[in-house]
């Protein structure tokens, strides 16, 4: 194996940075999901939608469910984090948000390496994920 191929067998710096952040975020997210779920099902914190009620709600479509349980779509769950069921969203959102953090982190690395095309592509991904996460894209509902 020559020196060049040995060198290129290693992952590139931006890939290692991405992997490292992804790993930490994923582990923290999973831990948070498990802890908050235990708090929820053990009834340590009162849920916003009672657990007996939720079994009736999950047969409805999402529009009727939100209407029936007086839940607002979008980021309104933040104001309900004090309830056992919505506390779970902390871990779920971390799992859904870690990829965005990874992309934000590699944009300057790519730019510094003079890999401007990929820096722009990574920035594009940041914008796409940011728009999706922002909640500005509503759905038509049923």
């Amino acid at each position: 194996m020559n020196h060049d191929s040995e060198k290129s067998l290693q992952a590139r710096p931006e890939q290692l940075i991405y992997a490292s952040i992804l790993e930490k975020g994923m582990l923290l997210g999973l831990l948070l999901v498990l802890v908050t779920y235990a708090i929820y099902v053990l009834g340590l914190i009162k849920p916003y939608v009672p657990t007996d009620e939720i079994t009736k709600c999950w047969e409805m479509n999402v529009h009727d469910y939100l209407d029936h349980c007086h839940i607002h779509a979008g980021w309104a769950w933040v104001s309900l984090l004090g309830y056992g069921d919505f506390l779970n969203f902390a871990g779920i959102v971390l799992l859904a948000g870690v990829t965005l953090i990874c992309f934000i982190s590699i944009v300057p690395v790519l730019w510094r390496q003079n890999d401007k095309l990929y820096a722009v592509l990574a920035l594009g991904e940041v914008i796409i994920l940011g728009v999706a996460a922002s909640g500005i894209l509503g759905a038509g509902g049923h």
Partner: protein
Amino acid sequence: MTRLGRLALIGCLSLLWVCLMCQPLLAETASSAQQASADFPWWMWPLLLLVVTFVMGVAAVLGGVGGGVLFVPIISGFFPFHLDFVRGAGLLVALAGALAAGPGLLKMNLASLRLAIPVALIASSFSIVGAMIGLALPTKIVQIALGGTILGICILMLIAKKSELPDVPQADALSQALRIHGVYQEATTGQVIDWKIHRTWQGLVLFIAIGVMAGMFGLGAGWANVPVLNLLMGAPLKISVATSKFLLSITDTSAAWIYLNNGCVIPLIVIPSLVGIMLGSFVGVRLLRVARPTVVRWIVIGMLGFAGLKALHKGLFG
């Protein structure tokens, strides 16, 4: 009518016939699930989900498919949850699996960030579009389309070939401009393999459809990613599988946010499913040494086929 047209017509009629013949059985499972929802105490559901998704996780690894593709049709078919919540949960289940596998694959340089970024840009944009379409369409239409897609996946699993090291005589202009190439060492032989890709724009176009389907049905899209990366674009099989798994963490993230922001996430459904699939995957990996993958693969295809028919039946007959 051409031979292909006749075959398609016969296929559709056979499918309709199977649906009609199986209607009492399928209807019985649907009504019994709804009856059970009222009869069972709430804590039975997460427990049941944990067990079912654990088995699903084992089967997914042994059958060589992602957990998400089994989760949505099976859970929507046999549990009383509305499809909106099952799709939201399905995306998060597929996302968690991809997040767990991603760091290792990237560090080992099997998943290629350079290959994934342009593809992800397209797939994640269109998975948002798919999620919005899926949430705007009537549930019956989505059920029918889901059933058709799942049956299509079964056919793809039956006919699709794999190529360990596809022959790519010349990298195309687009992949050269994007500098998509790499080197990896085959662990079994120690051979160092230089890889490059071709037919890049054709592959990127196909990722539009893959993104839409992933977002619309809440399915992980590994079943489509791998054939496109491997057979069409010419990436080695190991690079294709690893990059596909990592790619899911990006594609599913964007669609998952749409479902999350639209209220389609119920923690009582999502978290036991996520834990069950992940535990099942760990066990599945260990069983892989002793199990007979061909047999399991046929079982998975059978499970998917039945779940696809069930989704089709639910959409057609309500």
